[in-house]
């Protein structure tokens, strides 16, 4: 176990710790460590990811509270801002219903939170932040919740059928079935992480390669693809695959 814990910082290498990364001028995409906090005998580093994550969490929470405070004024005939809010919520509900069915439409509320956080993280590259989703720790944490949700729903809805699913079609495949269950969160988190990290590194390289004047308008086209297109697409894919994996474990 100790050996495994020693190896863990190596796996997300660029991610959790500042290692031997090149620190050239204008070519910097590591997680800076601003400081360290001692908590429960463990040392936690405070990096760019943590700061940006908390910033966007506060922004989203304040936005939600403002919208919640305005909820009393909403009428049956929507006007102004109510139109926009209803449209967004309905779009997410329709998305969930199309993937999971009418019966499990309550997952729309959970995935709305996931969706908005991942979307704002992916798009934060446009504002010059280091996207929090370009860190395996963030995507891994989100995926762990999905992993627990998959198996919680499987056990609570499927009962014994859930455990029977592991020895199908033949009992010899038990081990392979378990490995494929463990591969699900890994592939989910690495897909999002790799896409956003790759986009961010390419953007950093473009900025460092271009001269001072060209930095104003040339990278906009690359931003369109790597931040807006890939960011939105990966957000939709992440939520859609999570919903499909959860639905997969629930018997009809």
């Amino acid at each position, binding site marked *: 176990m100790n050996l495994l814990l020693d190896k863990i910082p190596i796996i997300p290498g660029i991610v959790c710790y500042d290692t031997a990364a090149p620190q050239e001028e204008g070519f910097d995409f590591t997680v800076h460590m601003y400081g360290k906090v001692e908590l429960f005998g463990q040392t936690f580093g405070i990096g760019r990811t943590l700061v940006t994550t908390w910033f966007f969490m506060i922004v989203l929470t304040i936005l939600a509270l403002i919208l919640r405070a305005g909820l009393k004024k909403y009428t049956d005939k929507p006007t102004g801002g109510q139109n926009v809010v209803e449209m967004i919520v309905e779009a997410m509900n329709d998305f969930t219903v199309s993937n999971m069915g009418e019966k499990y439409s309550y997952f729309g509320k959970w995935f709305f939170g996931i969706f908005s956080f991942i979307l704002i993280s992916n798009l934060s590259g446009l504002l010059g932040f280091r996207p929090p989703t370009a860190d395996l720790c963030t995507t891994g944490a989100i995926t762990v919740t999905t992993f627990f949700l998959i198996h919680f729903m499987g056990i609570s809805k499927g009962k014994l059928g859930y455990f029977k699913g592991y020895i199908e079609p033949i009992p010899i495949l038990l081990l392979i079935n378990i490995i494929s269950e463990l591969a699900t969160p890994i592939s989910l988190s690495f897909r999002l992480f790799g896409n956003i990290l790759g986009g961010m590194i390419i953007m950093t390289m473009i900025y460092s390669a271009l001269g001072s004047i060209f930095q104003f308008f040339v990278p906009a086209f690359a931003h369109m693809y790597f931040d807006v297109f890939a960011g939105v697409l990966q957000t939709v*894919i992440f939520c859609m695959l999570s919903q499909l994996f959860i639905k997969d474990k629930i018997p009809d």
Partner: protein
Amino acid sequence: MDNYSIDPKAFVLGCSAIGAGLAMIAGIGPGIGQGFAAGKGAEAVGRQPEARGTITQTMLLGCAVAESTGIYGLVVALILLFGNPFIGQL
């Protein structure tokens, strides 16, 4: 004798760079797969132009899933280049 010895750090760094390049061979697979998906998507739109929205959505989903193997290769290459785990073991 000293003239022919290699600095171990330089050797590990060079091998890591080669490894990163080899890891990116993984990009071939998603390239073929996504091209295939796009071709089939174009065929489907040609046959059924009214279902264009659904076809594009399905194709993008398939492409993004097919991309993940290439992304694993990219992650391995990036770790080798920027977060080299082997340097620490010298």
